[in-house]
């Protein structure tokens, strides 16, 4: 994975010095809260319901064991012993003291981490396929390009005060595991002319109050032109995006208002006059960055592993976990293991400091020192030998990390909701917990197969409810928490927004209503049909009926 050189170190330390001074000026009153706000946001500091919140970037979700260990250390020393992994593959701390922030940032810098641009109206952490470098489906590892975009967008002089936040995701296979069509810009690596790396570019996706699926703006931008093309998009957006209404300031509104063709013309006009040669990443720099992401030294192994096969037969719990949480790997004899952060009744994405230490050790011993954060709020050990999976599982199991529900109905994506967030209308955590308890039976979950439930505590949609197969949105009805249900959303290469089934429900009715919809699916599905396939075939109607049956 990428390692800082002296320049990366210098930039992060300069930024800490700057932010330390800004904190000082805020404390002594030279900066008003209004002036301080955009500055602290660009350093990942939010003011939440109860305290300041610090969001630390995990660039494209890749960490080494020292970094995860440090995240645990920060949770233990500066917070209440846990952290929360987000759908942007970042980690949030909910209780740091403002005066500790410079110290925390300094500790993070020791392991080449930072909180730069994890919030604010700037270009945010770039996300990617959690199985990058491990899956056999990809054209090439997308992470070097993520790193290039990270560097280019860091403290960008022109794009640090945009109309609104800006999110970019990159994938390199047809299967979309990074929800690129829900992003301001989604990039898919394709083969261009002469087999060179090129980017299929989508623009104008986004969730929130007015959700949009991104549209294709260019089929194959050559890799060497990528930064010029992104600059042109950002420039058009910065000049033309709305600033009069925060709810209409994202690029999706601009693209929808102009239409994709007129917006493309604006981008192309900017693209033509850019100084391309300046923005063309030098070949040796590209090679330097790619070298950091070279595949680890995999052993030559047979496809099948005796110890793994024997453990499958010996232990049904291990077998179930392997069935649900282990994914195919490009190297024979290896696999990727999903560590579910969704235990029954737990808070989705939360992890204790001790658990972080445990996973850090496993990553070092069994996964070439690599661990990934997935946007589904889970972690992944990307490169584990099949031979080692039984031991990895035993360790995870001993620390409450072996819930065998990856991509099943209790693998719920949820925002922190009204328990923490000052924007929320309703709590999302208790509703997610109630659902996970009600559907805890893993036999039932496996019978249902892959289903994604997404839960947001407000219309800002941090829990991605619009693109959940089943979405749950917290709304405020005359001071009471109610929940609106959608079905048929999808974040992947067949991205779609869910359909609202009807009027919102009180909290205690949500889990039973979803259970009825799931039972309806079991009753009407065709052979081999996943939940989302059935919804696409039948429409929302059968599920609407089931959800309101008892009401």
């Amino acid at each position, binding site marked *: 994975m990428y390692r800082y050189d002296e320049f990366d170190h210098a930039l992060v330390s300069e930024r800490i010095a700057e932010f330390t001074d800004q904190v000082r000026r805020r404390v002594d009153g030279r900066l008003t809260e209004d002036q301080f706000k955009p500055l602290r946001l660009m350093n990942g500091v939010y003011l939440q319901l109860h305290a300041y919140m610090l969001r630390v970037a995990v660039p494209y979700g890749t960490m080494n064991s020292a970094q995860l260990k440090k995240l645990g250390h920060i949770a233990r020393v500066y917070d209440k012993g846990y952290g929360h992994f987000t759908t942007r593959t970042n980690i949030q701390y909910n209780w740091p003291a403002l005066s500790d922030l410079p110290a925390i940032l300094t500790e993070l810098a020791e392991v080449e981490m930072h909180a730069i641009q994890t919030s604010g109206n700037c270009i945010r952490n770039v996300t990617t396929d959690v199985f990058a470098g491990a899956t056999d489906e990809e054209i090439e590892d997308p992470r070097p390009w993520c790193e290039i975009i990270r560097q280019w967008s860091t403290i960008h002089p*022109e794009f640090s005060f945009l109309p609104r936040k800006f999110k970019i995701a990159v994938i390199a296979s047809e299967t979309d595991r990074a929800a690129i069509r829900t992003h301001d810009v989604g990039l898919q690596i394709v083969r261009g002319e002469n087999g060179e790396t090129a980017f299929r570019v989508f623009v104008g996706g986004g969730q929130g109050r007015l959700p949009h699926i991104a549209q294709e703006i260019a089929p194959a931008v050559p890799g060497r032109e990528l930064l010029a093309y992104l600059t042109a998009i950002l420039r058009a957006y910065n000049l033309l995006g709305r600033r009069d209404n925060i709810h209409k300031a994202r690029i999706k509104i601009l693209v929808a208002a102009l239409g994709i063709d007129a917006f493309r013309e604006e981008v192309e006009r900017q693209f033509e*006059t850019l100084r391309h040669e300046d923005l063309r990443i030098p070949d040796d720099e590209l090679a*330097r960055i790619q070298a950091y992401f070279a595949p680890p030294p995999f052993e030559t192994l047979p496809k099948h592993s005796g110890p793994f096969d024997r453990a499958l037969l010996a232990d049904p719990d291990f077998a179930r976990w392997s069935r649900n949480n282990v994914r195919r790997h490009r190297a024979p004899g290896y696999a990727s293991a999903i560590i579910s952060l969704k235990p029954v009744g737990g808070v989705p994405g939360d992890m204790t400091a001790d658990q972080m230490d445990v996973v850090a050790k496993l990553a070092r011993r069994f996964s070439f020192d690599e661990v990934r954060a997935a946007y589904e709020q889970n972690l992944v050990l990307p490169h584990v030998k099949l031979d080692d999976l039984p031991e990895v599982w035993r360790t995870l199991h001993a620390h409450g990390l072996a819930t065998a529900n990856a991509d099943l109905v209790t693998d719920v994506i949820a925002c922190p909701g009204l328990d923490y967030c000052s924007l929320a209308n309703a709590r999302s955590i208790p509703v997610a917990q109630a659902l996970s308890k009600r559907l805890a039976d893993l036999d039932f979950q496996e019978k249902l197969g892959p289903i994604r439930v997404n839960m947001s505590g407000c219309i800002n949609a941090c829990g991605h409810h619009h693109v959940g197969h089943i979405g749950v949105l917290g709304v405020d009805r005359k001071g009471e928490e109610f929940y609106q249900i959608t079905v048929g959303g999808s974040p992947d290469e067949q991205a779609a927004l869910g359909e609202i089934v009807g009027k919102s429900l009180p909290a205690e009715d949500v889990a039973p209503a979803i259970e009825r919809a799931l039972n309806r699916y079991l009753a009407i599905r065709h052979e081999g049909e996943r939940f989302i396939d059935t919804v696409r075939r039948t429409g929302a109607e059968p599920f609407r009926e089931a959800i309101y049956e008892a009401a």
Partner: protein
Amino acid sequence: MRLLDPLPETDEPDGAIPGDTPLAEVEAAAVGANRLTIRFGAFRDGRGFSLASILRERGYGGELIAAGDLLPDQARHLKRSGFDAVRLNAGADPAEWRAMLAVIDTVYQPASDVAVPVWHRRAAVETLEQKAARLDARYRDADPETVLAAAHREFPGRIAQLSSFGAEAAVSLHLLAQVDPATPVLFLDTGQHFLQTLSYRDKLTARLGLTNVKIVLPDAAERAGEDPKNDMWRSDPDACCDLRKVRPLGRAAAAYDALITGRKRYQATTRERLAVFEVLDGQVRVNPLANLDADEVEARFDDHDLPAHPLADQATLRSVAGPAPARCGRARMPARAAGPAPTRWSAAFT
């Protein structure tokens, strides 16, 4: 980037272009103009950064001034987007603006200024001399704290301080402790120090919280072979110096790219143009105290309540510049500073 004084209050239009003006109109206004002012309506509204960048890319060569609701924290964004100057608002503190212009030096992406993006700096391998020259140009007039912090950033994990725990060492070591007390401090133990110096070393180390003082010793075998009677300093001071200083220090210092000294410009006439970053014998020497005068050194002793060397008459020791005593050899040792010695050895490199 220049900072312009606030304009007097007036109702007259000042000709500034509002930041929300459409690009085509801004471009039309730029044709033939030799000065343009872009007014930011709100500091959150970043359109002016794109307008300036586009004008510069399309060849506008006149003066470009930013005005309106702006924060000092946006100084470098303005500069990098191609602005030449900022019109300060009434009550703005120019010092804050200057500080913000200085704080970030490293840039990843090309923009409309002269800063060289990291990509190109990585590719163009900078020689040590070029690096020292670049840093010296940037920090020539900076205060010691800024110089030392920059040195740590530029040579992370590859920097050490040289100290003899002499008369003025406390100032330099105190500064080091403020920036990073874990920095290695190389103390050359010639075997000829007075006990007072050794106890001063331990006292100062504890008092300042230095955690990584390394004692550098002459090689025992070399010493036994070359100076068995321990009297070479009398008969051949140069050889003694080579044995006890030059070689051991050279070995210890080889692990670092940069060495911090306590040298100051005022100490000798030959140091009138002492650089804050320079290259000596293939290594960078950082002289964060180069700009301090004798009074400022004295003031630092007082301000931070630093203990004085037990053998030193401080006032005499620290202010008198003069040739090194004959028995200490000549200027062949690395990093050594001239200065009168209270003992057999000079106060050496502080």
